[in-house]
């Protein structure tokens, strides 16, 4: 059988141990795993790890900004910290968390036992993991990247940033990007080819739909980032001339390639979140989603529009009024499908028997915060306002309202919704509410005042500022809010660990949910399903639980707006 001296790779035989690392075969079982549930959990832990690292980085930055004329950290270190914070949060917190949920839940939601290519799935995870490792290795290799997460030319050129940081930025993001692309390919093939035979596309859970749309978005957007990163590596290592304006290159080319990826990327980080909310709102409102087809349609519209708006990040670079007008119009348009979705969720709650569990609380908080973030985003689509506010703290406030109030709150909502399924344990509801309120208060305290700071003209990325009226106090409030968020994240980790250790056992269906993943045990067995109920509507598991009141039995199968 096995040759002498070879390490025997343990095949998983028992149920997945839940979220903790302990299993009878130890850590080797996790490292060698090709099981989508284990890989999904590893994605999620990876993102928690980087959330802590990226959080500590920004706390240092906030300490530096707490008072005017502060000298807590040196300017060089300051640049590295905010660059690493942005890069980490986007590529190694939000992205892996979203892909973790997708990896874990896709097969369960469509009645499959694994993704289409399990080994490719493992490759995607480890590529992301090593990408993050490579990025952070730069600290040891003589200096982290320091040109912002968007890494603009000419700051990314060798004569402005001569440490190896930016080379590690390029190679780390290339690795992670390849992992993201391969995972997306895997998702698309799984969704299109491995659904349980009775599930038509029109009956897929909305989370699955959003992942499907999102994966196509990834396939179209990431190549331009990868191309740009390779070009930059060639510039820095082989003295090519892509982005150096002094020798025939073009600094604007970097911005075009980067935002051709970067704008779709912000939708890559929000579309799956819309999918999570489209699962959470109906379950906790005890109603079917309002306008199922509209949620899908607006998702597709957002994905298509995402590629027509990248120049709104470049209004201030002087591309001319014609270009600016076109992209201003397309940017304003993208508010329409997003608004459609907001009203879908509001109408889903309307008249429902709403249960205010923590997951639902985050969903409701999202509606408020994301709408604020969306409105400040619309204000940037108006070119003169953009010229006034670009590169100020107003932008920082806006992007954190959509990334935290949108993406991160969505991930928390999903976490509190699916945690019992993943671990077989319930979370402490009382502490979870504490976590929720600390997070929401801390978040608004940190970023609401930054709108004002930006309007007062405080530029972003400056490492210190003069003692102008109001700047000191507003920055101090912002810093205090940041620390409140840090406390809340520490509390979250405590809640998670406590639940895994000694939480109350969860039933297979604690929320009385609608979709197939709740049919199997919590945590699911190694083989997800023995058999699955025939899918005849968008809520197959509910149909199974209440055959007398099944969706497919009713004349108006999606219910009316006042709910059934």
């Amino acid at each position, binding site marked *: 059988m096995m040759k002498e001296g070879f390490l025997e790779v343990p095949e998983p035989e028992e149920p997945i141990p839940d979220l903790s690392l302990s299993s009878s075969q130890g850590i080797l079982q996790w490292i060698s795993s090709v099981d989508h549930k284990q890989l999904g959990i590893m994605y999620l832990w990876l993102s928690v790890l980087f959330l802590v690292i990226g959080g500590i980085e920004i706390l240092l930055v906030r300490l530096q900004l707490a008072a005017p004329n502060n000298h807590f950290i040196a300017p060089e270190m300051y640049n590295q910290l905010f660059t690493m914070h942005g890069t980490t949060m986007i590529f190694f917190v939000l992205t892996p968390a979203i892909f973790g949920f997708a990896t874990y839940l896709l097969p369960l939601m469509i009645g499959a036992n694994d993704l289409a290519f399990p080994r490719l799935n493992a490759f995607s995870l480890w590529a992301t993991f090593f990408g993050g490792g490579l990025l952070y290795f730069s600290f040891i290799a003589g200096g982290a990247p320091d040109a912002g997460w968007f890494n603009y030319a000419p700051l990314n050129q060798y004569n402005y940033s001569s440490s190896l940081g930016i080379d590690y930025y390029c190679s780390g993001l290339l690795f992670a990007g390849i992992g993201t692309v391969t995972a997306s390919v895997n998702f698309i093939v799984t969704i299109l*080819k491995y659904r349980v035979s009775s599930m038509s596309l029109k009956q897929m859970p909305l989370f699955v739909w959003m992942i499907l749309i999102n994966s196509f978005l990834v396939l179209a957007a990431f190549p*331009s980032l990868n*191309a740009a990163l390779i070009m930059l590596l060639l510039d820095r290592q082989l003295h090519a001339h892509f982005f150096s304006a002094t020798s025939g290159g073009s600094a604007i080319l970097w911005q075009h390639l980067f935002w051709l990826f970067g704008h779709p990327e912000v939708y890559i980080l929000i579309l799956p979140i819309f999918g999570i909310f489209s699962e959470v709102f109906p379950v906790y409102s005890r109603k079917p989603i309002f306008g199922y087809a509209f949620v899908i349609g607006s998702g597709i519209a957002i994905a298509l529009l995402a590629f027509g708006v990248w120049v709104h990040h470049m209004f201030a670079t002087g591309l001319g009024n014609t270009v600016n007008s076109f992209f201003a119009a397309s940017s304003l348009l993208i508010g329409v499908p997003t608004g459609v979705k907001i009203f879908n969720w509001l109408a889903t709650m309307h008249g429902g028997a709403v249960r205010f569990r923590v997951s639902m609380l985050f969903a409701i908080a999202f509606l408020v915060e994301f709408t604020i973030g969306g409105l400040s985003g619309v204000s940037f689509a108006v070119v003169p306002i953009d010229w006034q506010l670009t590169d100020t703290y107003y932008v920082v406030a806006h992007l954190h309202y959509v990334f935290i109030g949108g993406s991160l709150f969505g991930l928390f909502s999903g976490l509190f919704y699916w945690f019992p399924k993943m671990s077989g344990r319930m979370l402490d509801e009382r502490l979870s509410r504490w976590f929720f309120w600390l997070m929401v208060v801390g978040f608004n305290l940190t970023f609401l005042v930054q709108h004002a700071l930006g309007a007062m003209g405080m530029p972003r990325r400056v490492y210190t500022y003069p003692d102008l009226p109001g700047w000191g106090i507003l920055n101090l409030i912002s810093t205090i809010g940041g620390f409140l968020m840090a406390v809340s994240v520490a509390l979250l980790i405590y809640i998670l660990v406590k639940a895994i250790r000694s939480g109350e056992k969860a039933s297979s269906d604690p929320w009385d949910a609608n979709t197939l993943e709740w049919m199997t045990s919590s945590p699911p067995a190694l083989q997800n399903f023995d058999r699955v109920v025939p899918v005849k509507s968008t809520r197959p598991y509910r149909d199974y639980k209440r055959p007398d009141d099944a969706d497919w039995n009713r004349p108006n199968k999606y219910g009316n707006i006042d709910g059934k």
Partner: protein
Amino acid sequence: MGNKLMMKLVVGTEAMFFVSLIMAFVYFSFGPGFKAQLLQHLDTKTTGIFTALLLSSSFTYWRAESNYEQGRMGRLKLWLILTLALGIVFLFGQGSEYLKLLNAHVSISSSSFGTSFFTLTGFHGLHVFAGLVIIGIITCLTFLGDYDQGQSSIIQTIGIYWHFVDIVWAVVFLIVYVAPYFV
């Protein structure tokens, strides 16, 4: 199940990658001195011959695919080897062109022409090389009898990739070597 779909998606995302490289090339080609250097250094006729050889490797691979579908293993092996040979000759042609350019002091660091030319054609060459490695492996497996059952979709799956690489070269050849004479 799903192999061919996967390869189509991979090819789709690779196409976007090449679109970015081509866009950069076209963007730089409007710069001063770019066209003059290009016309001076590139030999369209010789590269045209190698282009024809690469495109005919798509034909030979297509013959391999259809012989596999009809279960003619002997002919499958023959056409696969022919494909490999054509691909290798193309890479050889590209190598000799690179050597000539380097001897004329045109390199990736010499000018924006060198930068964008070597990046674009180099990445295509890398894709040809990867394709040759893959086709080399399946040729070996064919000789070992792995596909005798006729059930595998692997030959067609790799075919999607190989035809894609050839199509990309057709586009690159038109833009880099032919278009400058007309624009």
